[in-house]
């Protein structure tokens, strides 16, 4: 009665002891990809700043910034083909935008004129998901459905370190592994769930270690190293696409801003810690390598910023106009055909 698969097979599911890194390792740069990554990082940072500013001006109800996590956001979007699906959590507006959803539409939920500002089917991006980890079983189910239909579609789902504690995380990963569904789970471990630090969230050696309990590979990556995140995600997506089943990727990163504009992060984390992570800013890390290889000049840097400023200005303009609101919309989409009860309520308005 030999029960456990070969220890070697098990070892292959465990993450490597050190997170995968590319930047600063002397690895040869991809002269086409890296500058593009940099441009997207700059743009992402600028959008984070712009959205935060719009919140102060009352133009967004709330904004959970991904400043510091832009490498994960950009890589998540770039790892996918257009036909694939992205399942974002509530903090992942940037990934949604990078996937092609217009910024103002991506910010619909947080602006508050409607719950989802874009058509998920058009962009193959699920609604930004507020109830934590609940989008993960959707990703599993969608990936499974695509496979049942014989379509070449991979789903990539994002979740936070805190979200891994939810039962839905467990159930989604287990279903995915049993079904060998083409889905990739990316945990952005930014070390906090609002105020709760990682040590109060888990006692595991790493979150990637959870993978072995589902029989899928777990991978660790430096979440502030954009080429590294993209590499690992592309491998995981390719693995899924080729029928290899799901992968759990843990990206080690840090949330530089407060949880949202409504949060006061000084209550629960020391400024030194934030300062140390600022040193590892994904933009700085990439810029350093790019400059070392002569792939970033003052001029291209300026161009990247100008491009970002243009996008931010467009976003500002879009959000500074009041959205057209029709209270009757409240009744229009509850069911395909409103029930008589809903019609009555609508007509009584």
């Amino acid at each position, binding site marked *: 009665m030999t029960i456990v698969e070969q220890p070697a097979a098990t070892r292959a599911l465990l993450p490597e002891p050190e997170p995968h890194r590319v930047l600063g390792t002397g690895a040869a740069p991809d002269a086409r990809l890296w500058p593009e990554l940099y441009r997207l990082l700059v743009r992402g940072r600028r959008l984070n700043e712009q959205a935060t500013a719009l919140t102060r001006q009352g133009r967004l109800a709330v904004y959970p910034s991904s400043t510091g996590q832009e490498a994960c956001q950009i890589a998540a979007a770039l790892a996918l083909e257009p036909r694939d699906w992205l399942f974002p959590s509530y903090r992942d507006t940037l990934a949604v935008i990078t996937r092609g959803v217009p910024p103002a539409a991506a910010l619909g939920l947080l602006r508050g004129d409607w719950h989802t500002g874009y*058509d*998920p089917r*058009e962009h193959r991006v699920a609604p930004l998901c507020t109830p934590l980890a609940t989008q993960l*079983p*959707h990703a599993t189910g969608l990936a*499974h*459905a695509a496979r049942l239909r014989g379509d070449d579609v991979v789903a990539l789902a994002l979740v936070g370190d805190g979200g891994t504690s939810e039962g839905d995380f467990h159930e989604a990963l287990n279903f995915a592994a049993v079904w060998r569904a083409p889905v990739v789970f990316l945990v952005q471990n930014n070390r906090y769930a609002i105020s709760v630090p990682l040590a109060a969230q888990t006692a595991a050696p790493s979150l990637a270690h959870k993978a072995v309990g589902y029989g899928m590979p777990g991978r660790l990556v430096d979440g502030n190293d954009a080429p590294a995140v993209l590499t690992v995600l592309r491998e995981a997506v390719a693995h899924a696409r080729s029928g290899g089943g799901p992968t759990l990727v843990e990206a080690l990163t840090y949330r530089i801003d407060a949880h949202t504009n409504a949060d006061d992060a000084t209550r629960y984390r020391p400024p030194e810690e934030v300062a140390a992570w600022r040193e590892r800013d994904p933009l700085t890390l990439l810029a350093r390598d790019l400059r070392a290889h002569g792939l970033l000049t003052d001029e291209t840097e300026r161009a990247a910023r100008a491009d970002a400023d243009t996008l931010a200005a467009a976003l500002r303009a879009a959000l500074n106009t009041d959205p057209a609101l029709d209270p009757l919309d409240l009744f229009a*989409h509850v*069911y395909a055909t409103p029930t008589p009860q809903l019609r009555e309520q609508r007509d009584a308005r």
Partner: protein
Amino acid sequence: MAQALNRALRDALAADPDVHLLGEDIGTLGGVFRVTDGLAAEFGPERCADTPLAEAGILGAATGMAMYGLRPVVEMQFDAFGYPAFEQLVSHVAKMRNRTRGALPLPLTVRVPYGGGIGGVEHHGDSSEAYYMATPGLHVVTPATVADAYGLLRQAIATDDPVVFLEPKRLYWSRDDTVELPATVEPFGRAVLRREGADATLVTYGPAVPVCLAAADAAREAGWDLGVLDLRTLVPFDDATVCAEVRRTGRAVVVHEASGFAGPGAEIAARVTERCFHHLAAPVLRVTGHDIPYPPPMLERHHLPDVDRVLSAVARLQWEDQV
């Protein structure tokens, strides 16, 4: 009734390749109530799939499948075992169409065997329909007859919105030789008068329909001519039929197995009263399960509405004291 449900599932699977069944033990075993008997063999284990044991996972995965365009039909093994999926149901299933302005409808059916009367132990006799009724975005449907089991389930699967399809456990073994399958597909939102009656109307659904029919029979002896109205769909609610009937008789008793307090009957009584106030000779009364956790098997008959309790409510309909 189990056979009619089985036939409805089979016909739906045959009619539409997008229909997929998911649940615990629905494949090889054919379900603990055998409602999916033979379907895995006929349509393959991917069309009628045994899942890991996790209800939020089942409903969540089904949601993702529906997002991709399939029409999943999920089985929750027992009513109380649907509760782990409650967040998925309330926060996603019920809301997905609305939150996306109609871009992402979920054609998803959740089959829930519900109610007691089968001698089940703890957690096997809940009537959870009040939770679903209070959740906008869901259709809530429950058949009381063999024909409706077929007709309403086919309609549920054909509906482009999520349907909680409540199957009265104790009617699984009911038969009706007058019904030929496939029966007619039934639209939602139409209550049916199972029995005409001039003096008062029993408003009911699901497992309590046969109880009310028996009560109406027994009432004859007491000199009351009672109508029995089977709601069939709780959401949408058939105000027109219910009110027409209650206005005609001027008296109504709502009968169901779920607990009374904040139960389905509260809504029914309140809306009937709002709409028929000046036609009512007496307040709308309720005969329901007590406000207690579902009892152990040896005591369940003291909890379930029966003919006596229905008749004693009818007797309290102020027959002397008319307005």
